[in-house]
């Protein structure tokens, strides 16, 4: 079973830290885009079955509900997506009116990923976000009343001015929302963004971010969230099935400009270019494939459950040298070796890149 990702590159306004492919679109552009997406689904469909669909962006909720409906219908038609399968949409809290939520639910969306970003008004402002805390509360409340049972919020770690205290405030806010999923993403300053050009003076240092991250994990645990990936936490096993595919090397197809695919052992992507995409929806660029075993390790170690020791052995990682390195990493508290599995501790997750490079000489 594969995953389907639809990239919706529209935003009302670009956030100063964002470097994802998005722009402000007019009606005409949305229409053209919509036809192109349908065409691509039609052309790529009919071969494999999908059990997740993820509408990401951008701000996918800017797309009219009937269009979203049609896209889901197409996915059902061409990829055998079932009504019990996970269908997620990313949403800006300001776009989630009662009407919109009703329509989304009706269209088949059953999971919401809301860009709450923070529970601190000062941080929201510093991040250039236009919504307030009330918008998030309302969106969650109405969504529940419309029957959404799988709701997630995104939280940013490393926001300007953020401290352990403000993070705990944010998590308190999340607790009150009473939802079952939460993602904590580190703010990365990308050079080509306004933040990259003109970094806020009160950005948390790397050390501070690490401290905040560990404090957040601690707190989320107390709130009943179980960490299942470096940035992802869930209750009641409501993990994101779609996102899990990325980390377990299952197949997925990305539709729309800037979207990435992993299919039949190949990785390819659409260039983040609207014009190019609509002129040829089948045009993709292939990427050099990493050593599949290394890729497996790199992605597997993002998961809290890590990788199996037997798999490590079978894939040829586990030898005397690896074992000695693993032991050393365990001694300083970066990894755990137990229950036949090899996984990173929260501290280890913070330095995952360095651990991978320490363990593996050959990444190709």
């Amino acid at each position, binding site marked *: 079973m594969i995953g389907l990702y639809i990239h919706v590159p529209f935003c009302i306004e670009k956030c100063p830290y964002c470097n994802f492919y998005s722009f402000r679109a007019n009606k005409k552009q949305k229409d053209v885009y919509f036809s192109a997406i349908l065409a691509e689904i039609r052309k790529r469909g009919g071969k494999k079955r999908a059990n997740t669909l993820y509408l990401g962006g951008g701000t996918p909720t800017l797309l009219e509900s009937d269009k979203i409906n049609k896209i889901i219908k197409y996915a059902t038609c061409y990829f055998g997506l079932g009504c019990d399968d996970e269908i997620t949409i990313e949403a800006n809290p300001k776009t989630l009116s009662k009407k919109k939520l009703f329509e989304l639910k009706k269209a088949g969306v059953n999971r919401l990923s809301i860009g709450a970003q923070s529970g601190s008004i000062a941080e929201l402002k510093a991040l250039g976000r236009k919504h307030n805390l009330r918008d998030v509360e309302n969106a969650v409340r109405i969504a529940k009343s419309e029957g959404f049972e799988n709701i997630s919020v995104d939280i940013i770690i490393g926001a300007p001015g953020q401290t352990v205290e403000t993070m705990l405030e944010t998590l308190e806010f999340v607790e009150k929302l009473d939802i079952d999923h939460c993602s904590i993403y*580190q703010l990365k300053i990308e050079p080509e963004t306004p933040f990259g050009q003109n970094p806020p003076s009160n950005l948390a240092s790397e050390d501070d*971010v*690490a401290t905040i991250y560990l404090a957040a994990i601690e707190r989320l645990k107390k709130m009943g969230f179980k960490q299942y990936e470096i940035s992802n936490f869930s209750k009641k096993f409501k993990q994101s099935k779609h996102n899990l595919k990325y980390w377990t090397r299952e197949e997925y197809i*990305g539709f729309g400009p800037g979207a990435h695919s992993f299919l039949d052992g190949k990785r390819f992507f659409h260039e983040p270019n609207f014009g190019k995409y609509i002129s040829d929806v089948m045009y993709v660029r292939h990427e050099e494939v990493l050593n599949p075993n290394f890729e497996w390790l790199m992605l597997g170690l993002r998961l809290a459950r890590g990788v199996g020791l037997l798999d490590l052995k079978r894939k040829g990682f586990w030898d005397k040298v690896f074992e000695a390195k693993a032991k050393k990493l365990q001694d300083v508290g970066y990894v755990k070796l137990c229950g036949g599995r090899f996984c990173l501790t929260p501290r280890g997750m913070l*330095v995952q*890149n360095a651990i991978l490079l320490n363990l593996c000489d050959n990444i190709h």
Partner: protein
Amino acid sequence: MNNKKFIRNFCIIAHIDHGKSTLADRILELTETVAKRDMEEQLLDNMDIERERGITIKARAVKLVYHAKDKNDYEFNLIDTPGHVDFNYEVSRSLAACEGALLVVDASQGIQAQTLANTYLAIEHNLEIIPIINKIDLPSADPQRTIQEIEDVIGIPAQDSPLISAKTGLGIDDVLEKIVSDIPAPSGLDSKPLQALIFDSIYDSYKGVIVYVRIKQGTIKPGDNIRMMATGAEFTVVSTGCMGATELVPNEGLFAGDVGFVTASIKNIGDTKVGDTITSAQNPAKEPLPGYRQVSPMVFSGIYPTDGARYGDLREALEKLQLNDASLIFEPETSKALGFGFRCGFLGLLHMEIVQERIEREYNIDIITTAPSVVYKITMTDKTVRMIDNPTNYPKNDKILKAQEPIVRATILVPTEFVGNIMELCQQRRGIFKDMKYIEQTRAELSYILPLGEIVYDFFDVLKSKTKGYASLDYEMAGYAEAKLVKLDIMLNGEVVDALSFIVHADSAYSRGRKIAEKLKENIPRQLFEVPIQAAVGGKIIARETVRAMRKDVLAKCYGGDISRKKKLLEKQKEGKKRMRQLGSIEVPQEAFMAVLKLDE
């Protein structure tokens, strides 16, 4: 036969930047030795480094013809001398090839330490000295004061010194006439057994070694069998000739009084030692010319390619440099930290820097060098004496009966306002005060005995910074003195890094160790594990710093399944690792090794 009456052999001595090479250029121009169009600034300084740094590294000689006011044509042999204390011996041999010296003094700066040292050297060689006051076109020039200074300090008459500007060409005529009138013609008989002084040699891939000589007596012609008196090597002369400004001009032979070149299919520059005497193999002179000595390197340092694969290239570069520089020595050495490289010996710090720079520039090899070391003389408990030029080989303290270090007699000329700073510096560097003289109201000459090891460690830079660049330094070797020496080891993660060890006086071990530890901490990036940095003397830790473990190194999100982003990041990090030296599990950037060479005061 030459007509000795019309020959003038002379050199130019001056402090760095006082205009020696510019004056040489003007003389070449005015004697029309070089057509104006061939004129390249500072023709005698052939190497890029020489032109850039304004110093002369190798002696050069050029023959020129001057049509004097007395209507006679004179043959001038101008021998350019290296202008740095590292090359003192070479300077003395160049001087020995002359009858006179032009002493160039900058009219705005007056006499400097180097001027003094070289002038005394010229006086020792009985050279006729013609003081020349240069840069009189500068607004700050004070020719009269400079003349007075020369008379007071050096003690030679200077009232009728030519006042010139080598830059504009002003007064150069006077200089040329002075050379004719004041500098004696060479003496020496053609009929006596050959004595030719070697004052330089260069390697040419077609001709072999080209030896620059001054014939003191006798003659030398192609076909003659010659012998090097110090090395005993014998050769048959292939060609002789004189040095044109842009090329060598062969002739039928060299006679007493001549300056010229000899080739004899000599493959090894080591056979033609500067200062050695060439004589005839059939009819040898009874004695060599005085003054020859074997020059031995004073400063040693390890040179390693940053890219281990270029070890062979580095060897080739050193071999090529050695062809022209018999004072450079090297042998392979291995460092645990830096891999395969060479232990190299140099005449001094400048010589070392020049060699390093030439390797990087002319041969395009990136190198890491270890801290310069002097040669220690260690008497072991079993009474044997060992010369140690590499800290790695320094014996354990309980095996040492007596440790001695090389010392120098240093002369520092400095404006009186900075005397205090200099005294402080010399004291810090374990100097023994010998003497202080006021050479004029505002300037003093300080004499100190200083350990050479303290001079090779950052001394010039500090000297300059403490005197706003006004102080000048000259030194000569003064033997060995006993000292309380210890070997300072630097340990990373508990392991000694051989390339960072050095020998230091026991009293400064603590502060030096602490500074190096701090410097390393700044230069070693945080990594997965914390890195303890320790400085130790004889197993005792005297300083400790820690590079804390990194806290965060992770890609936040594999957005939309974009795995390549993460891959690219990892590849970049992997590349970065390659530029580091792997010491056990620790990655040390190349810069860290260099950073410890320059510690701020």
